[in-house]
């Protein structure tokens, strides 16, 4: 009994719910970044404004030039104590997709200051958007590292408060070279703000060397593996199914393969649907339905397994001869496929983001490759879990653990599947309505 309980606990622990993924800096931040540098014998300020969903909506239609003029007025530059004027010379505006089908804003403004021929004391203050919540960062020098990669990737370090730098002092050395440039297309549009930015940021890179591609594929693979260990993804179901159905390592591998294929197809299909319907619906509205379908599928599988167990039990207890608990047929091919599909049907949002980003960046092939690597990682983890379940099961049996408990195990595992399916369905139902 104790072992049965332990097993149940272990299985339900696998099904523990995911913590809601938080938006990197919250939906109402106005984040700003300034880079003060000298190039072509002039002082330049690269100013970046990153507005989250709500301020973007509040701003309405953004006139980049008017914004640039206002930002120039609020960016106070002092050289050797004297006020120097900054003139906007270029702007770049993009509206990366945010949460809930809403848009965010990324505005880059290049401000040109006076000519510089000697080493000069610098004092710079950003008075724009005072009082607004958000990341505030200033760096001096063309090569100086930005902690947020110029508002592209906000550090998730727990020991780092949101940066709140609105003024700096320093020294500027005269320098030649060409004036700084604003980001264009890909880097400007990169889906920085999306919650699962770790995987999604892979796609945004500007140049793709073979090494970068390999590293990205590797990263996607490991990301998929790690992702499978996060809650969801039918691990519970896979494990419970294999335990209950006398699965073999081969079955575990087959399950992993089916999950990969389903997941890959699911992401591609959902990506295509999203593209086609992007004017009509947001993917968030599609997810509840997929959740519901997976849930119902799992319920059906659980019920079917439980029914066959129950019948078998009854046949057993009403039988006249007392032979050992005989081996069951291995899992049927059809139910194996069904379990695998239910495990992989629901595409991970981050995988979908990658594909959509790839499409918007015209790197469809690369995006698809990444998805395949991601799914393969996912499958490896799930297969691993399946194998653990299979071997744990064998261990249990070898420990001459005969009798009622082992006979109860398949029924219990059917109940676990049923419960997981019910939980998925219950969870999905209110969202669909």
């Amino acid at each position, binding site marked *: *009994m104790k072992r*049965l309980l332990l097993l*149940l606990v272990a299985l*339900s622990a696998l*099904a*523990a*719910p*995911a*913590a*809601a993924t*938080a*938006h*990197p*800096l*919250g*939906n*109402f*931040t106005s984040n700003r970044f300034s880079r003060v540098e000298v190039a072509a014998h002039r002082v330049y300020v690269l100013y970046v404004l990153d507005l989250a*969903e*709500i*301020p973007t*909506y*509040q701003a*309405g239609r953004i006139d980049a030039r008017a914004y640039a003029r206002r930002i120039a007025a609020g960016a106070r530059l002092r050289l050797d104590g004297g006020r120097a004027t900054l003139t906007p010379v270029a702007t770049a505006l993009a509206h990366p997709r945010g*949460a*809930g*089908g*809403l848009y965010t804003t990324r505005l880059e403004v290049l401000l040109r200051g006076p000519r510089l021929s000697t080493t000069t004391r610098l004092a710079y203050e950003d008075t724009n958007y005072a*009082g*607004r*919540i*958000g990341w505030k960062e200033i760096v001096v020098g063309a090569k100086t590292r930005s902690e947020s990669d110029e508002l592209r990737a906000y550090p998730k370090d*727990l*020991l*780092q*408060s*949101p940066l709140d730098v609105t003024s700096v002092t320093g020294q500027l050395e005269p320098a030649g070279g060409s004036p700084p440039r604003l980001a264009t297309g890909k880097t400007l549009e990169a889906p920085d703000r999306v919650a699962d930015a770790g995987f999604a940021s892979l796609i945004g890179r500007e140049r793709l060397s073979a090494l970068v591609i390999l590293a990205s594929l590797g990263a996607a693979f490991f990301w998929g593996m790690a992702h499978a260990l996060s809650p969801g993804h039918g691990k519970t179901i896979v494990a419970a199914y294999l335990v209950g159905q006398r699965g073999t390592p081969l079955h575990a591998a087959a399950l992993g393969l089916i999950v990969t294929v389903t997941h890959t197809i699911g992401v591609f299909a959902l990506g295509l649907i999203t593209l086609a319907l992007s004017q009509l619906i947001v993917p*968030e509205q599609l997810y509840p339905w997929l959740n519901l379908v997976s849930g119902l599928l799992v319920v059906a599988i659980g019920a079917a397994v439980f029914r066959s167990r129950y019948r078998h*039990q009854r046949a057993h207890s009403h039988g006249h001869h007392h032979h050992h608990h005989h081996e069951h047929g291995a899992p049927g091919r059809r139910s194996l496929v069904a379990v695998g599909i239910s495990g992989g049907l629901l595409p991970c949002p981050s995988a979908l983001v990658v594909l959509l980003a790839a499409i918007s960046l015209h790197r469809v092939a690369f995006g698809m490759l990444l998805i395949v690597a991601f799914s393969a990682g996912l499958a490896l983890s799930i297969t691993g879990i399946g194998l653990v379940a299979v071997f744990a099961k064998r261990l249990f049996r070898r420990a001459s653990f005969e009798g*009622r408990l082992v006979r*109860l195990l398949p*029924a*219990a595992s059917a*109940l*676990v599947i*049923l*419960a*997981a399916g*019910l*939980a998925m369905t*219950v*969870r999905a139902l*209110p*969202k669909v*309505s």
Partner: protein
Amino acid sequence: MWRRLVYAGAAAVLAAAALLLAGSLRGERSHAARAAAPFAPPSTPQAANVERLQATLRTDPTDAKDWGQLGLAYEQRARETGDPAYYTKADGALHRALRLAPRDPVATSGLGSLALSRHRFRDALRLGDQALRLAPSSAAPHAIIGDALVELGRYSAAFRSFDTFAELKPGLAAYARISYGRELVGDQAGAIAAMRLAVAAGTAEPEPSAWTHWQLGKLYWATGRTKAADEQYRAALAIFPGYVYALDALAQVYAAKGDVDTAIDLEQRAANQVPLPQFVAGLGDLYRIDGKPKAAARQYGVIGVIDRLLVANGVRTDLETALFRVDHGLQFRATLALARRAQHERPSIDGDDVLAWALARNGHCTEALRYSRLALRLGTRDALKFFHRGMIERCLGDSAAARDWFGRALALNPHFSLLWAPVARSLR
């Protein structure tokens, strides 16, 4: 026989687990929620405290106590700045503390107060109970348990927790809770007296002190003492410049005095800093009474955006946006379903009141009356709840009772709502 019992038992356990799982899977995540009453504010300013703890933990990241303290400090920073990024960091730091010391009561109750800030009241209750088991003599868990119980509508148990908390740790946080309890049972004078004690117990830290002044101001405001309220809001702003809750409250004072321009200016500042639904809706209402329907519609649109974000984050039961939608007649029937869910999640008198109001606006006035009675079951003297009751009585055809409720609402606070006080006046 034995086998059947085990089957039944396992089935029951699993069903319970499934329901529990489904409940927690909803993943409620809140906008920067109404700041929970702060407790145990250390005397050092939090920003410096945060930096000190960060530095200590960089050299020794294995100290569970420091991680717990950092988590609490981040929570306080979230209340001070309104920046929800601090809630995420607090969550991470507290979980780190619990990984190092799984039975740490401070980190556990820290997660409890975090759950309160995120409007996860059932989680908060569970964490508060857990913290109390880990440290039976500590005070903080009683505050968390009490706060959660209030929101879950379990008032007598909540008040017992508040009393225990006050015995163990008299001070700002305890007096503020006693005041809240008295306000709920309709003892306005007693509530004011307790909140004045809380103000007097104020600490060197600006945010908790500003919070108590704001609360005291709201108590004065709720009984129509506009001038006293105005003084308290200004005191809050003097202690904590730009304190958004006081800006929002002061905007209502100016609107009541007829100075809508200043009111709009103040509300705009609050909504710009932290676009909470109530600020944005307030700004829209101000534009509306100022005869600028376009600007009002723009602000109401922001609420729609906030709504969409909440849905994208898995929050389906936000009481504040439900009230907004009922007030502004948006999607009556969908909103009724929303209000039902909200009341189910939060069966407090506020949940009952919003549901009653939603039912009334949908014409289900008999059922509405039932929930209005529930909303007033404690004897709370809240002009808005009185007004809602009046509208329900009116809908049921009892115009004498309706006029009586409108009169009571206006007698309590003639400026109880930008939108509805004029309606109450015209129907009285």
